[in-house]
């Protein structure tokens, strides 16, 4: 592995994304990206992808049944998320956007809790410090700065952890990821900018986001190495991320990874993708499905059989059922909680507003008796 790039061109991405598995599961060894995964870990990657897809599907159903307000599916992006998140150590931190169910499951964030944001029960429902998994960030690209700052903070503290932030192809157009990469480069912060290039920002295709040869070509402008990987190849995603993470952990600073993938579902459940993409395009994309690919690989390596499949299916189903139970008809909490967390010390705030709401809740203020 290269350490500090002395030749600036080392910061440029390779011509082709790193790719270890063909869609049919054929494995191509790559000395730059050795696989340090045992059989159990290989199965684990597969298992997490299947569970993610199941929960993702359940979320779409829950939305259709009026249980969630909206949901942003990660279908098709399981390998990108799980391969990358799996490359981190437990102490490392993740700063997600709103689409990272897969990464959240790697971090054992409770799936029902994750979905409560989309239900609107509360604005988030997990303790970031319990999972080293930041809050979902909806304003595009903004979380990249939190990841950079956190990584700077770790470095200032001589704590050898790494942070990783996810954003999308659309996100690369915003000012914040630009500033985050600027800071990360200057301070050599151990942060991985992981872009899931799923080809769309809602309806807007990649070519409307940039004229760059690739998104990974942005990295050199910050003195950061730009990597590209087949994001539907969980092994390649893992290996490339792993390399970037270890590089960062050893003090060589940030990295940018562009994972080529495809958003198989609508942008969110509110979206109507038939307005801007064709069935043919979808059919084409389906051929590169990350889960089928990994199953083919495991099968070819004799790591896969019906028992395994059944076990995983069962677990996926159980998780989905638990999610369903955790969401279905869940009550909202105490409305007075609206005032609970705004300030650590609310002295002087909310003068009468809390009382107003209390009175409204008690029915003292009640249109009915007018």
């Amino acid at each position, binding site marked *: 592995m290269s350490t500090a790039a002395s030749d600036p061109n080392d910061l440029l991405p390779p011509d082709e994304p790193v790719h270890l598995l063909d869609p049919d599961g054929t494995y191509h060894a790559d000395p730059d990206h050795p696989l340090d995964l045992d059989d159990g870990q290989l199965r684990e990657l597969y298992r997490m992808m299947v569970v993610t897809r199941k929960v993702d599907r359940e979320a779409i159903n829950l939305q259709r049944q009026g249980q969630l307000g909206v949901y942003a599916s990660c279908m098709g992006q399981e390998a990108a998320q799980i391969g990358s998140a799996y490359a981190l150590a437990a102490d490392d931190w993740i700063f997600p956007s709103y689409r990272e169910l897969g990464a959240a499951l790697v971090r054992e964030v409770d799936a029902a809790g994750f979905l409560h944001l989309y239900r609107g029960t509360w604005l988030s429902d997990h303790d970031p410090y319990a999972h080293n998994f930041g809050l979902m960030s909806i304003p595009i690209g903004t979380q990249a700065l939190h990841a950079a700052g956190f990584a700077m903070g770790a470095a200032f503290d001589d704590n050898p952890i790494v942070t990783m932030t996810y954003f999308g192809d659309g996100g690369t157009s915003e000012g914040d990821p630009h500033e985050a990469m600027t800071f990360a480069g200057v301070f050599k912060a151990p942060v991985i900018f992981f872009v899931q290039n799923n080809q769309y920002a809602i309806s807007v295709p990649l070519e409307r986001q940039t004229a760059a040869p690739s998104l990974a070509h942005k990295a050199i402008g910050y003195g950061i190495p730009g990597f590209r990987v087949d994001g539907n190849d969980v092994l390649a995603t893992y290996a490339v991320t792993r390399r970037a993470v270890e590089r960062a952990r050893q003090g060589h600073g940030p990295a940018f990874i562009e994972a080529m993938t495809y958003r198989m579902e609508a942008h969110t459940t509110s979206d109507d993708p038939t307005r801007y993409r064709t069935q043919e395009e979808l059919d084409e994309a389906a051929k590169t499905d990350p889960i089928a690919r990994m199953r083919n690989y495991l099968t070819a390596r004799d790591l896969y059989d019906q028992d395994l499949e059944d076990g995983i299916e069962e677990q996926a189903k159980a998780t989905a059922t638990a999610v369903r139970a955790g969401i279905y008809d869940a009550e*909202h909490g105490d409305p007075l909680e609206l005032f609970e967390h705004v300030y650590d010390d609310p002295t002087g*705030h909310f003068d009468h507003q809390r009382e107003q709401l209390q009175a409204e809740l008690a029915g003292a*203020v009640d*249109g009915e008796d*007018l």
Partner: protein
Amino acid sequence: MAVTLAQAINAALADEMEADPKVLMFGEDVGQLGGVFRVTDGLQERFGDKRCYDTPLAESGIIGTAIGLAMYGWRPVAEMQFDGFTYPAFEQIVSHLAKMPNRSRGTVKLPVTVRIPYGGGIGAVEHHSESPEAYWAHTAGLKVMTPGTPDDGYSMMRAAIRSDDPVIFLEPKRRYWMKSDTELPVTTEPTHEAVVRREGTDVTLFCYGPMVRTCLEAADQAADEGWSLEVVDLRSLSPLDTAAMVASVQRTGRAIVVHEAAMTLGIGAEVAARIQEGAFYHLEAPVLRATGFDTPYPPAKLEEYWLPDVDRILDAVERSLTF
């Protein structure tokens, strides 16, 4: 013909693009998708992808290039996809869009219309239900308007585009599907004037955008109680129609300001300050406010507790009447 607010705005955009070949419409997803609320539906098909186009995902870029386009001679209508996503463009709006005409001593005109779907009540996730109007109304150099009816949606949008001043055009998204029986085109009152939507004698409700309908409902309910409420739709938040506000309170002696935005330094603060100055001796009770709380916009399941509704309004009315 029944027309929704969204359709009315869409028609205004189309009619203005038809009337003036210099009008451009752009933003995130406004092209083929027709906007996430379909307000720009059909415009790209009809006017081509040079007149209605998708931009990169960058709000500062959208407003900053709108300024350059306007300097060149185009008449840009820029969409911010949601209220909460105007903030990345704050600097371009406040430091340039609002100030450049003045800075240039009038040589540079910036006839830019910034369309912003705003407000809550649609069960959305965070950042999709903000009411940022006070930020804009506090900023000298901007005009800020918001329609409360489909007719105004049409007429004010056309006026906004024709204005040589930069206009922040706030669209009450939860009312996009509200219908009115209107034959388009329609021309309503001048954009800087407040309009009395319902006359009354006991208390005036001042409102705008999404709360106009809520206040009319409140006035209906109050009538059963025997209270006669006047409902004034402010329409323009900058400038505020002080004369109309004062005139109404001179009639009713009591006022409630209603808006979704947080109370502190919301539009209600300015309305109260102006009324107590302009109608001091007519006021029989303080100007009260029925608004959102001074907390971040809540999660969807709790928004009904946060948003002002008929009950909160009538509670304020009662407090005013019994003051």
